[in-house]
């Protein structure tokens, strides 16, 4: 959108137009419907690859839609404040937290994408972890996993105590997980998952390195894959959760140009530069 405004502005300086004409030009451009632009490049065995365009999942349904993710991330979302936003669990598992007396919001996308932080119970027993809520009922939060908060790579932590205290934090989990796939699939703005996402040959989903220059309009995510077997990389995407079953918010998706086939020992370092 910012890009479209700048383009419209540049055109206005070159050839004055009416506001109606500017609106018509703006609305005629599909790109004008996007809230940001994203670009990728990759290094194959140390050789820099080409820039390529990607897309944002702006027409996806459910909580995986990039626009919904952004709105909830910046505007706090449904987890802003409600009575059950903090409390004590009555049961936990490796992917869930139950409070049998809670009334968690379930309308629309519910609390999907929000973070729940769990800590020791009233006796001081239990781990300190957090999870990304992928769905919920009025009494049960289902998370992708419990995270070790000291890990920058999304390492799993210990399942919280069955009577753990918890807080549901406003906002959304950041989309810093990077993934690749080997399926013949043309990315679409309605995609909610990365088709045939790779989980073998050294290509599992992982958290990228975050880098940003203060006041710049971009930030970058970087991740290094080294192959242990043969795979052809067709598409890639960024996710807002570690969910190894292929879930999580997927705001960005891109096709790999010329779909490189990597053999054992080949390295792929992807740098994703996202313009805000």
């Amino acid at each position, binding site marked *: 959108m910012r*890009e479209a405004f*700048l*383009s419209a502005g*540049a*055109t206005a300086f*070159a050839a004055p137009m009416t506001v109606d004409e500017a609106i018509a030009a703006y609305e005629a451009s*599909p*790109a004008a419907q*996007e809230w*940001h*632009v*994203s*670009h990728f*490049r990759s*290094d194959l*065995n140390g050789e*820099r690859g080409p*820039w*390529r*365009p*990607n*897309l*944002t999942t702006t027409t996806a349904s459910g909580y995986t839609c990039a626009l919904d993710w952004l709105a909830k991330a910046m505007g706090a979302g449904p987890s802003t404040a409600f009575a059950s936003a903090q409390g004590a669990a009555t049961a936990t598992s490796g992917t869930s937290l139950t409070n049998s007396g809670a009334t968690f919001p379930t309308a629309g996308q519910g609390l999907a994408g929000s973070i729940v932080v769990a800590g020791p119970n009233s006796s001081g027993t239990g781990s300190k972890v957090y999870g990304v809520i992928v769905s919920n009922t009025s009494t049960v939060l289902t998370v992708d996993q419990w995270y*070790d908060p*000291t*890990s*920058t*790579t999304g*390492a799993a932590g210990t399942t919280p105590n069955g009577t753990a205290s918890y807080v549901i934090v406003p906002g959304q989990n950041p989309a810093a997980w990077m993934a690749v796939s080997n399926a013949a699939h043309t990315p679409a703005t309605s995609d909610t998952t990365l088709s045939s996402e790779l989980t073998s040959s*050294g290509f599992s989903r992982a*958290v*990228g*390195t*975050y*880098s*940003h*220059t*203060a*006041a*710049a*309009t*971009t930030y*970058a995510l*970087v*991740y*290094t*894959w*080294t*192959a*242990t*077997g043969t795979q052809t990389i067709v598409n890639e995407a960024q996710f807002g959760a570690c969910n190894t079953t292929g879930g999580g918010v997927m705001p960005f998706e891109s096709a790999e140009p010329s779909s490189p086939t990597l*053999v*054992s*020992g*080949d*390295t792929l*370092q992807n*740098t994703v*530069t996202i*313009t805000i």
Partner: protein
Amino acid sequence: MRVIAHLKAHYDYAPLPDGVTPSGQDIAAGKVRAKRDGSGWMMRVRKERTTHNFTALPEGEIIRHIIALAMPKRGRRRVTRKEAISDYLATQPYVDQVDHTDITSFEVHDDHRLDWVGGPEGVNEKLFREIAAPYLTATYAATGKPLLSAEDLEAMIKLYLEPVEEAAHVDHLHERFNVPKATAGKAVTT
């Protein structure tokens, strides 16, 4: 590992004006990049202002970069942890954000002081062995031998475990990016 590069200017991107067509050299040099939908180009611009770049570099990614450099197709290069960090910054996140000549100083926050909470960040031999394990059995087609031998791994870990304080990281980054020591940054322990 958190690395802050203090800057006197930085790269940013703006739409390439209509009617301007980038050459193949422009594209190869990274002066432009494709727009989101492939409809045009964004041009790389340099903005003069005092600012800083912040990079949060996971320990696992440092290890993966060391392993990537040790692969046969990349010359089986062996590097220390501090060399891996500087090489990673130079070849990955800084390429499109920072011109090396605009760096005025570095600041390094290493994570080895987090050991007390049992976290995986900071120098971590166990994590190194876990990440390297698949490459001890995966073979290189040209030779039929494992991508890494047990001897390779031990040599790599010896280099990785080289004791380095934050000040030494800062000194090395200044040397790697040719930043004068007169403007050396501070090393901060967290």
